[in-house]
Each structure stands twice: as C-alpha cells, then as structure tokens.
C-alpha cells in the first residue's frame, strides 16, 4: 500500500539493523540527501549499502560510513578525491567492499527487479573482478556469470510524484532511481513535488507507482 509520510524520519523507519539498502544517485545528482540524513538519525547499523560511490566529503553516505553504520559497500567507484571516510574505514579493515563494474552494478540491480536469476555479460572477462566467476563462450565472446542484487529498502530521489506513486525524474539525476525502485522490497522516494492523480502524462511516467511504497516531500 502506497503511503505518503510527513517526515523523512517516518519514511525511513523500515530500515533495520542488517538491512541491505540501495541508495540512488550518481555523485550528488539524484542522491536522496534528506533520506540519508534521516537514516543517520534513525540509528540503523550493520547495513549493506548499494550505491555507485562510497560517499563524498562530510555529508550523506560518507557520514553513515564514518559513523560505522555500514558493514559492506557494494559499488563501482569508491575512491574519489573526497572519499576520505570510506578510505579510512577500508584501510582499517572496518568495512567490506564488493567492487562491481558500473554496468554490472546497473544490470544486476535491474535483474533483481526483473526476476532474472543471473546472466552472462562480457564486461569484466579476463580481469581481476571476474576471478573465480563462472565463464562461458556465448555470442562469439567470453562472458562472465553475474547474479542479481536485491535490497530490503531503496532510498531514491525523484522530481515529482503523483497520488498513485508514479515518478518522474530530472535530467541525469534519474540514474539509478528507476532500477533500484524495482529491486527493493520497499522503496522510499523523496520528491520535490507531489501532484494530483492524472497530472502526469501516462506516456512520460518513468517509474510506475507499483514500484513505490513510501513518498515524502522534501524542501
């Protein structure tokens, strides 16, 4: 059942100790900062977090990592000029890292939402990141077997929601939102605007409301 919450605290209440949490965004675009702040406030720990990066500077995901609330990161690009909190935890052996090529990350998230139990892709074949993985020669290329990434909760940011939970995004802030929404048992979207049912053109809906459980307006 779709729910509209008044506060981000209520919106993230479903995240529990040990949850796998997908967090949308690529860099700052599409990052649900307010939901992440609420997660920080909420106190859930021992989290597995799926995000393209591993936090930047002293905000959002970086603070969650700094506070020791993230047991494991699944991401494609943890190392950035300002990823000092992740860097420190990683070097101290206090956080686990599953490094995934960005396209595999996206496709594995998509697979979870689409009910695909696994797939073969040429990406990563012959590299360190495919070590120990099953390989197969298909369509004239060596390919690597990859499995879906499911989550308990997805925290995403969209531009606008209607009363049915349909979402539209803005420019490159769309990035991981639509696929994470489909891959999690429970999807929480922070939006800038809530519009009446019928105000979004059905041709232009990007994430149908079936994938959204909780909506909170921020800002």
């Amino acid at each position, binding site marked *: *059942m779709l729910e509209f919450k008044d506060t981000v605290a209520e919106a993230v209440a479903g995240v529990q100790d040990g949850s796998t949490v997908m967090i949308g965004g690529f860099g700052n675009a599409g990052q649900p900062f307010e939901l992440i702040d609420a997660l920080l406030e909420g106190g859930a720990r021992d989290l597995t977090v799926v995000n393209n990066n591993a936090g930047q500077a002293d905000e959002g995901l970086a603070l969650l990592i700094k506070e020791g609330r993230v047991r494991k990161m699944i991401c494609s690009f943890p190392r950035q000029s300002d990823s000092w909190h992740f860097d420190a935890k990683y070097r101290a052996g206090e956080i686990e890292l599953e490094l995934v090529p960005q396209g595999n990350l996206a496709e594995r998230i998509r697979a979870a939402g*689409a009910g695909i139990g696994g797939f073969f892709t040429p990406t990563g074949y012959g590299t360190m990141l495919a070590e120990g993985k099953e390989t197969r020669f298909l369509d004239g290329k060596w390919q690597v077997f990859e499995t879906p990434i499911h989550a308990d909760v997805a925290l995403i940011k969209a531009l606008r929601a209607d*009363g049915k939970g349909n979402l539209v995004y803005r420019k490159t802030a769309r990035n991981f939102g639509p696929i994470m929404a489909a891959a999690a048992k429970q999807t929480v979207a922070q939006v800038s605007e809530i519009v009446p049912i019928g105000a979004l053109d059905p041709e232009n809906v990007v994430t149908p409301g*079936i994938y959204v459980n909780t909506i909170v307006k921020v800002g």
Partner: protein
Amino acid sequence: MSEISTSAVSSGAAPKTSDAPLGRDDLARLVARDIAPGSFVNLGIGQPTLVSNYLTEEQDITLHTENGMLGMGPVAVGEQIDPDLINAGKIPVTELPGASYFHHADSFAMMRGGHLDVCVLGAFQVSAKGDLANWHTGAPDAIPAVGGAMDLATGAKDVYVMMTLLTKDGKSKLVPECTYPITGVGCVTRVYTDKAVFLIADDGVRVRETFGVTFDELAGLMDVPLLAG
C-alpha cells in the same frame, strides 16, 4: 473417491455459503471482494476479466495489462475505441487517471519480478500442489500458443484460478496431478470454482467455502484429499 478427505477431516467444517453453485458473475464478484485494497492485479483473458466489473472504487485496485500498461480502465465503447489502446486480449480498453505505459520488456519484468500482487487466470486443470495447466490441451494436432500465461503464473505473488470445478464430462479439474501440459509448477494459491473456493496450502488443499454442496458432497466429486477451511 473421497476416502482420504472424509477420513482426514471432520465434514462440514468449511461453510456452505450458498445453496446453489455460483454463476460466473457471482464468482467474479467473490474474487473481486477478496482482492486486498491497493493491489496491482492482472486479469487473464476470458472469465477472469469479469472480475473487473466488481472491483469498487474504495478498493483502489490498479489493473495491469501485459502488453504495456498500468491503470487500465473498462472496455472502450463507441468513440472511446482507440486502436492504439488495447488489452492483452486485443480488446480496446480505456485509460484511468494515474495510468502509465511501458514497453514489453519492462511490462514483463514487472510481472516476472514479483511486483503484481494478484493475477487471476482461467485453467484446464490445477493440481493439489498448485501446478497450473491452462495453455495447451496436449492434443497432438493443436497449434501451441502460450502468450504471457507462463510469466503470469510464475511471476505474480498470488495466482488465483477461476474455473468451473467440473468438466462437461463431470470430471474434477482440481486433480492430484495435471494430465495436461503445465503452465507453471506450484504457482496457484487459490482456486475459485462454481462449487467451492480452495486454498492451496502447504499441508494440502483447504476448502474455504462451498456453494450448493456440502463438504462431503464436494469431496465425493474429486480425487484430491481435502482439508476443512
């Protein structure tokens, strides 16, 4: 035929809800009433489409059609008919406020990824373990056609079957093992028939209610052991 069932449970434990078998419309009304508010639902071609006539506005059910739409409205009439807006049975339909369109891979990902709460399908046979047979009679000269039946059967959280309990020859379609080619393994969770509603449970087939027959009479019609309510 009913030895196992009648010996296994006390008779009469499943309520006889009506004195006569249910007609198609009454059955559709019953299925509609059983769908939880806010559900996303796919109604299969044929008898299951009748269910849409009995969904109430308060239930706020969103209908999915696998050719690429959520928020499907009633069948289109007159000037509403638009050849670009059809359902999975290729019947012109309408669009409700809050609808969305998507391509076929996205639509089936929605089904296959377990996002639909309920799908309602017709059937040739359902087995005691919830195997569904509804796509192929198995006749050697039949041209096979499957459409989205296997995806719906496998993907929806709950698969409800609507059918008459008996064939024209008086044989139960709820069977110990399907003899027709199956559509999906262990996928059916409920079977709505003119004579009873069956729940496919972990411990066996439970009879939720009967229509026009007693539990014992029902058990006598089938080879499947039955449990009460």
